[in-house]
């Protein structure tokens, strides 16, 4: 029978990489008995001996708290593998050596893989592995598992270890604990059914540490209850004599032992403040943290709104020019031009989907900036800063996590409320999370800000994001003082990653996935919505027109939108086109823009430019792309306020002109105020039908209706305040 090698290690120590290198392609995947956790096993051979390798779940120690730890602890105790390979993260020796020490205390034959030594060396940690070999009586092998370095040496060490008897590690836990261990070991040795389970000293240690898995097992063993009673008395005895709970007393001694070991291994036990800690002190500072967060957000939105403008214009020109011409030409080839089919493709699909695709560069820039912030570790700092600000007004701790997720998309943010402890906290967070401005709302802001606030575009977009946070905090504050009273917050530690230079590959993968998701949405949701809107615009309900040949005001869409429009009149955007866009925005926020593009395109009955040659079109696309790239580079200094070259395009697109005219007319000349109110309304009203569905699943139908109604009311009053308040103050 092949010797069995179990691979153990903390999460992120490189255990999986090492297992893969050991076993190559010879792997099997199954489930651990009675668990949903996957079990990986494989084989390797050396010197004609075949070894079976089992990959244990990542665990920090052998006191079973999580399911993964229980699996690892139970496997080691019951299966007694021939060798345990423990993977150690060399850059975090103190974190990894607890597991090494516990496995050694349990009496397993062990080989230590000192992994990620390159990372440790970069951090100036010089490790003398012979110290670990001397202290534990084990063989230590340096490995770089990702690159496959040290794997052959590790295999040799595993083979050699079979000839060596296991040397159980004995840590001195101090006179009090040792006396109780001694008494308990005597009881265990005297009970044959218990004595045979594991090393008696290890059984005693685990019982004193309060290991629930072992206690459950002993409860079913003859004589086990007697041992459990003795262990309980010993735990109480230790607590009474040391004034510290027994398991904490054990942890303190083991921690001191490991600190001393690491000190000898590395020469100096380095816990000095590193540069990441210094940066953290500023970024998470009680008073500086929030201004820094706002500046970071401002830069993100400045890049998003300003720097991408040349590419936004380029996509717009490509869609409204060559793509529209090619579409018409193709339809003419099959004899479908000049009819309702051409209208469906040009005024429905191209205007709708194209109207949203124009904003791909904007979303690309937003996702790029967010990915950079995520990968450097800043987003977790921002979450900590937000948390402090919100707790000050009674919003539950941890609420900031789903709220930050809401900057990306409201749907997962609502599901992320599950990480909160109580149903009250989950509900409160679910009610305020939709006010965080998701990526889908950005095209609406950019369109209107470009038309009405060309010089301060990024500042207006930034203001929308800040307003979203402010409204969420205000609503949370009101709810926590009224319907949802605050409960005692539960303590928990936020472990944040160290600051690091962003990994460009990771950033690129994130940006590609997210931008792809936006484009996929344009090809599915927006496409369907655009076709539905086109049909509703084509169907005449009044007037003399026929299908696809009717005055849009007489269409089904026009009549429904007209029915809603009076409610929005006090907000300055009571034209039916505006109310219609907001209605369709209930499907998804990007649809607001696509519907505007469709409605204004239909009304303007814009003719597609005369056809030119295909090759000339491709040349035009290529040259304008290069020009857009040059303009983007020249626009970068504008992020910090340096305007070397005037890149302002004074010429509005057809959609921008139509939007400007529409808002000016609906507000009696106060187009800026009405547009600002419209943006506030889009920010605050119901995010989309998917978010409503998610909310109903999480919190039930009653709260869903309260949420939807509340958001409409808040949005209406928000826009009302902006428009009417602004008019009263003379800003119109």
């Amino acid at each position, binding site marked *: 029978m092949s010797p069995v090698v179990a691979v153990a290690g903390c999460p992120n120590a490189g255990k999986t990489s090492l297992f893969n290198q050991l076993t190559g392609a010879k792997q099997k995947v199954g489930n651990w008995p009675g668990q949903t956790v996957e079990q990986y096993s494989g084989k390797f051979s050396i010197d004609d001996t075949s070894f079976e390798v089992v990959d244990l779940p990542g665990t*920090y*120690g052998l*006191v*079973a*708290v999580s399911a993964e730890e229980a699996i690892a602890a139970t496997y080691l105790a019951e299966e007694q593998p021939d060798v345990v390979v423990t993977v150690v993260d060399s850059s*975090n020796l*103190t*974190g990894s050596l*607890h597991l090494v020490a516990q496995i050694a205390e349990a009496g397993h034959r062990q080989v230590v893989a000192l992994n990620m030594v390159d990372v440790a060396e970069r951090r100036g940690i010089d490790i003398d592995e012979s110290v670990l070999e001397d202290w534990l009586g084990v063989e230590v092998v340096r490995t770089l598992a990702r690159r496959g370095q040290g794997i052959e040496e590790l295999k040799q060490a595993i083979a050699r270890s079979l000839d060596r008897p296991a040397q159980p590690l004995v840590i001195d836990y101090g006179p009090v604990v040792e006396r109780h261990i001694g008494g308990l070991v005597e009881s265990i040795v005297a009970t044959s059914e218990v004595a045979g389970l594991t090393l008696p000293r290890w059984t005693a240690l685990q019982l004193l540490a*309060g*290991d*629930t898995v072992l*206690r459950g097992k002993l409860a079913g063993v003859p004589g086990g209850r007697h041992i459990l009673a003795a262990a309980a008395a010993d735990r109480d005895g230790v607590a009474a004599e040391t004034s510290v709970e027994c*398991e*904490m007393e054990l*942890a*303190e001694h*083991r*921690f001191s032992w490991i*600190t001393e070991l690491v000190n000898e291994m590395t020469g100096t036990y380095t*816990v000095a*403040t590193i540069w990441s*800690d210094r940066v*953290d002190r500023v970024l*998470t500072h009680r008073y500086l943290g929030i201004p820094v967060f706002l500046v970071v957000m401002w830069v993100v939105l400045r890049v998003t709104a300003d720097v991408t403008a040349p590419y936004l214009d380029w996509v717009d020109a490509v869609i409204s020019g060559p793509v529209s011409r090619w579409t018409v030409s193709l339809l003419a080839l099959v004899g479908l031009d000049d009819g309702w089919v051409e209208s469906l493709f040009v005024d429905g699909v191209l205007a709708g989907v194209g109207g949203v695709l124009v904003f791909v560069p904007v979303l690309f820039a937003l996702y790029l900036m967010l990915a950079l912030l*995520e990968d450097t570790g800043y*987003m977790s700092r921002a*979450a900590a800063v937000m*948390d402090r600000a919100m707790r000050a007004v009674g919003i*539950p*701790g*941890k609420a900031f*996590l789903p709220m930050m997720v809401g900057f*990306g*998309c409201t*749907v*997962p943010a609502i*599901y*992320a409320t*599950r*990480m909160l402890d109580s149903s009250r906290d989950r509900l409160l967070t679910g009610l305020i999370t939709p006010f965080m401005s998701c990526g889908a709302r950005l095209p609406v802001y950019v369109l209107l800000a470009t038309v009405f606030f060309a010089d301060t575009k990024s500042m207006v977009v930034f203001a929308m994001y800040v307003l979203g946070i402010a409204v969420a905090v205000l609503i949370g504050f009101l709810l926590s003082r009224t319907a949802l009273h605050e409960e005692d*917050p539960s*303590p*928990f*530690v*936020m*472990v*944040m*990653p160290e600051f690091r230079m962003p990994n460009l590959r990771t950033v690129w993968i*994130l940006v590609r996935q*997210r931008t792809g*998701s936006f484009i*996929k949405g344009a090809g599915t*949701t927006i496409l369907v919505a655009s076709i539905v809107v086109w049909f509703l615009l084509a169907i005449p309900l009044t007037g003399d027109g026929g299908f696809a040949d009717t005055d849009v005001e007489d269409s089904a869409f026009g009549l429904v939108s007209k029915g809603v429009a009076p409610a929005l009149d006090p907000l300055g955007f009571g034209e039916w086109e505006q109310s219609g866009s907001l209605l369709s925005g209930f499907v998804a926020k990007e649809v607001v823009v696509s519907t505007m593009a469709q409605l204004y395109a239909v009304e303007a009955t814009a003719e597609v430019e005369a056809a030119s040659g295909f090759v000339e079109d491709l040349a035009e696309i290529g040259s304008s792309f290069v020009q857009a790239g040059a303009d983007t580079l020249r626009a970068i200094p504008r992020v910090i306020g340096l305007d070397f070259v005037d890149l302002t395009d004074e010429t509005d697109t057809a959609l921008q002109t139509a939007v400007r005219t529409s808002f000016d007319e609906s507000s009696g000349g106060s187009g800026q105020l009405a547009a600002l109110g419209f943006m506030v309304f889009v920010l605050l009203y119901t995010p*989309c*039908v*998917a978010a409503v*569905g*998610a909310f109903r699943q*999480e919190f039930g139908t009653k709260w869903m209706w309260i949420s939807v109604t509340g958001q409409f009311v808040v949005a209406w009053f928000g826009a009302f305040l902006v428009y009417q308040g602004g008019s009263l103050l003379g800003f119109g």
Partner: protein
Amino acid sequence: MRLTSLLNAIEESSGPVTGIDLALRLGIAPGEVAAMLDALRASGHLAPEIAAPEPMSNCGSAGSCSMTCPGPGECSLVIDLNVTGLEIRGLSR
């Protein structure tokens, strides 16, 4: 009794607390706090927080958050805060 002091500091905090907060409170380096948190994790005093169980059963496909209902780990638009939450566990208490 360094671990005991740290665990007490965590218990006394109202809501989330960062390693920097704890280091400032205890007057030690953040790196030392990190090492002590690892020790408390290994001894079972701290454990990663566990989200509430999945309540939905018929969610759509992953990838887009627009019309389907992917869970938190399935949507590409989820912003990864890269934060691990550690909660105090009662062990045998």
